[in-house]
Each structure stands twice: as C-alpha cells, then as structure tokens.
C-alpha cells in the first residue's frame, strides 16, 4: 500500500512539475517582482534605489499619462456597437437557410487576421487618399472627408472604431454558441403563442445567454485597458494615441523599468477589479 502511494505521488508530481514551474516563473514571480520594482528607480541593470511612490505619483499627475487612460475610454465606447452588432448577427444566423455557410465564412474572417494585417487594411482605409475619403467623394459627401489619422480630435475615435471590425467576431461566436444551446421547443412554443421575433429575442434569447453576454461585457472592459496593437502598429502611439500598454513597452526600451513596473501594476489592478466584479456578480445570479 505504502509503495503504491509513493508511486502515485511520484506520478502526480512528474505530471505537474513543469507546468507549475512555468506558472511560478512566468506569472507569479513577475507580478510580485513588478510590485517591488515599481517602488524603485531600477533601469533593468545596475543598482536599485527605493524611491517610494514616485513612479505612481508621476502616473497620476502627468497629464500625458492621464490622457492615455482617457484614450482607453474610446475603445470601451466602441465595444457597445460591437456587442450589439455581434448579438443581432448571432440571432439571425442561428437557423437553417441557404447560404448559411458562406455567411459564416465571411463573417469570421476579421477574427482570423492578425494585428499587422488589420492595421494595414485600415491605414489604406483611413489615410488621406484612402478608401473612406474616396467613398465619401463618390457619394458626393466631400464635406464629411477628414484627415482621419492626423486630426487630433478624431484620430482616437477613428482607430477605436477599428476594434469593432476586428473583435466583433469573437463576441459573435460566443453568442452564437450560447444561442445554439437553447432548446428549439422554446421557440416552437413561442411561435404557437404568436410571439413576434422581437419578443422571442427579448423573452427567450436574452435571458438564456445572459451569462455569456455578461462575460463579453467584462472582456470588452478588460480588453480596452489593454489596447496595444492597432495604435502601436498604425501610429506607434503618436498623435495622442498612446495607451498604457504602449507606454509600458516604451518605458522598458528607455530603461525606465521601475516606471514600466508601476504602470504594469496599475493595469493589473484594473483588470483584477473588473474580473473580480464579474465573478461576484455572476455568483449572485
């Protein structure tokens, strides 16, 4: 018996050792390390001097840093039409009809493309002689033409709107997956009772996928604080499109590791609050 228990323990340990080590080294050590380094002026090499809350103070007082958090709000705003669009798309595609697979193929396309591809597509779309301005000219709406990527007033909403195109597919698939789990009898009963499609959506679809809807909202919030690829690749964070994650990377390259760590801690805390809120609220349900 003893022998058996020992082999069992060895077996368990051998299966867990590598993943657990990976987890500790690449998740927990950096998070705790960040917290320590964020109170120092460490450059990534050499001495580490304790500077108290100086790094954090800089984050909360410098207007440039405050505005990068404001930029995140544009992405959060874009998440609203994104979720609405994804939801209705999932509702209408949930059925059997001619052309279903073609539409499914087209509609998932943006989800499969990486940040560099999406950025290039939208540079071509938004640049001064790009497709958006050309389309507006074709429609004789020249008054609506803008320098979408240069005008400081509209550059952030312009590039934030790209995230609708890029990320709706993820929400769409999640909604679609959830809708497919609703028993068809419910819809049949609704038809017999003479429900309209809107009533069906309101009283069957939405209540059934509430949990997934909620997860999507949370993902959008925690995603908008972590925006990186589009503004970084398209504009390198210039023209007032800086985001916290771009700043983390730039500070790392500038050897301001202490400051980068403080900003990382802040992003981590925000994401943690959002996800904890989700857990608590879902449990209440």
């Amino acid at each position: 018996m003893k022998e058996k228990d020992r082999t069992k323990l060895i077996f368990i340990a051998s299966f867990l050792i590598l993943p657990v080590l990976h987890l500790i080294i690449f998740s927990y050590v950096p998070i705790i390390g960040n917290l320590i380094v964020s109170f120092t002026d460490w450059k990534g090499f050499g001495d580490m001097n304790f500077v108290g809350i100086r790094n954090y103070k800089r984050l909360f007082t410098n207007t440039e840093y405050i505005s990068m958090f404001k930029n995140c709000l544009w992405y959060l705003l874009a998440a609203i039409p994104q979720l609405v669009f994804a939801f209705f798309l999932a509702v209408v595609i949930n059925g059997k009809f001619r052309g279903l697979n073609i539409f499914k193929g087209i509609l998932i396309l943006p989800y499969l493309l990486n940040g560099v591809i999406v950025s290039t597509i939208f540079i071509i779309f938004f640049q001064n002689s790009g497709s958006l301005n050309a389309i507006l000219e074709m429609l004789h709406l020249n008054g609506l033409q803008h320098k979408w990527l240069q005008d400081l007033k509209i550059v952030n909403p312009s590039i934030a709107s790209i995230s609708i195109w890029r990320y709706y597919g993820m929400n769409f698939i999640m909604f679609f997956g959830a809708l497919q789990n609703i028993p068809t009898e419910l819809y049949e009963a609704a038809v017999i009772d003479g429900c309209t499609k809107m009533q069906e959506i309101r009283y069957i679809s939405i209540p059934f996928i509430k949990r997934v809807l909620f997860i999507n909202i949370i993902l959008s919030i925690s995603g908008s604080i972590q925006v990186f690829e589009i503004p970084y690749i398209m504009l390198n964070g210039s023209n007032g499109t800086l985001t916290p994650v771009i700043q983390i990377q730039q500070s790392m390259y500038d050897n301001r590791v202490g400051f980068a760590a403080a900003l990382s801690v802040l992003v981590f805390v925000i994401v943690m609050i959002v996800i904890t809120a989700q857990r608590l609220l879902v449990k209440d349900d």
Partner: protein
Amino acid sequence: MIYESTLYKIVRYVFLVLASVFVLVPLVPLVFMAFKSGREMQETSVLTPPSNWLNFYNFGYAIEKGHLIKAFIITAIILVISLTIQILLTCMVSYVLHRFDFKLKKVVRTAFTLTMFIPVVATQTLIFRMMHAVKLVNTMWSVVILYSGVGIVGIYIMLNLLDNVTREIDEAAWIDGATFPYTFWNIVFPLMKPGCTTLLIIQGIALYNDFYIPNLYLNRDVQTFTIALYKFYGSMSTPFEIVSAAIIIGMIPILIVFIALQKYIYSGIAAGAVKM
C-alpha cells in the same frame, strides 16, 4: 423546424448582406493594390481595380525582400514545438487534477485559475529582464518557452471533457496491473483528442496571430511571420502595393486552415470562450 415568417427571412438576408459588405469593404482596396504597378498606384484611386489581374510582380518582390519564406518556416517551427508541449502538458495537468486527490490539489488549481487575473502585458517588464539575463532574447526559444505554458481555458476544456470519461476505465486498467503512466498514455489520453483539437484551433489561431510577444523578443534575424510583415510595413520605403501583396500571402495559411477546419472552428472557439 422553427417557423419563420417571410418578412423575417428577408430582413435576415438584408442584414447578413450588409454585415458582409461591412466586413469586405475595407479588404477590397488591399486586394486591388496587390496587383497594381507603382505607377498605377499614383495615378488611380484606391477604389479602381488594377488594369492587369495577372501582375504578380508585387508578390514575388514581397517574398524576396520581406524574407517571408524564412519567417514562415520559423513560425511553423515555433508553433509546432510550443503547441505540442502546451497541449500535452494541459492534458497531463487536467488528468491529474481530475482523477487524483493530493495535498496541494486546491492550491495548484487555484494557482492556475488566478492567472486569468494576470494580463500578459503586465508581466513582461520583468520576464524581459529574465530572458535577457539568460541570453534568450532574439532567439526563438524565448517565444517557445512563453508559449508553452498551460492556460486555464485549456484546463477547463479538458476537465469538462474528463467529466464524460468514466473513472471505471482507469480503475479497470489499474486492477489489471497497468501503471499510472501507461493508463494515462494508452487509455485516457486517446479519449482526450476532441479537447486537443479544440485547444489546437484556439491556440493555433492565437499564437499564429500574436504580435506582442514576438515583437518584444524577436527583433533581428529571427522573425515570425507577423513580425516580418510588421518590419516590412514599418520601413517607410516599402510601397503599399508590395505590403498589400505581402499581407495577402500572410492571409493564405489562415484561409487554408480555416477551409480545412471550418467545421471545428465555430464550435472550438465557442467552447474555449464560454468556459471563461
């Protein structure tokens, strides 16, 4: 079969066609550009189709100057190694967490669950210094190591799957004298294949498209496809028609995988996402 009114059917098609237009419109000029000559680019609008659809000059130029083939091979190596390790380890961890009771089980499970609170972007400051210290920056091993970790979504998928694999299978094997490793590799692991497929799709797409990690760790000779595209695009001297051709080349592997695995992609992504 659900009854649908004619009006609803019409509304559905109108909505789906409009949505498809919304998806495809930004892509059209990119396809046009890839076939245009430099002179055509200057003289025509972005919305004008190319005069010669058989002008493949840009594609050849992009492959040669962008070192795209080398980047593609490197990406393939990174993905094959890290996905194999990641999926195997995910199966192993999930099996142990599902089938055995041991002292630190709760701690281990919680440790994996809590990683969903930790954004990757908030950990790289120090990981970069670690990788730098062990001289792995600018080698593909830094990326392979980071990609080989076990994620909580994968564990959830596998635990769910193991709920439907009866314990009696394991116990019967043990009574017959099979060792623990034998039972896992020869009896339970083959039954975990559907979960592996799901994880392969989700992580395959995510890692092929990842920009943050390779951009941070691979800057010189070793580049993934995404980074090769980015470097190409970042150097201001590269004209747009060449970049467009490079991008279309970059989309081909994704489209091939998509067409081959379409059946699994929708269910796979949904499974991964809903488990959150």
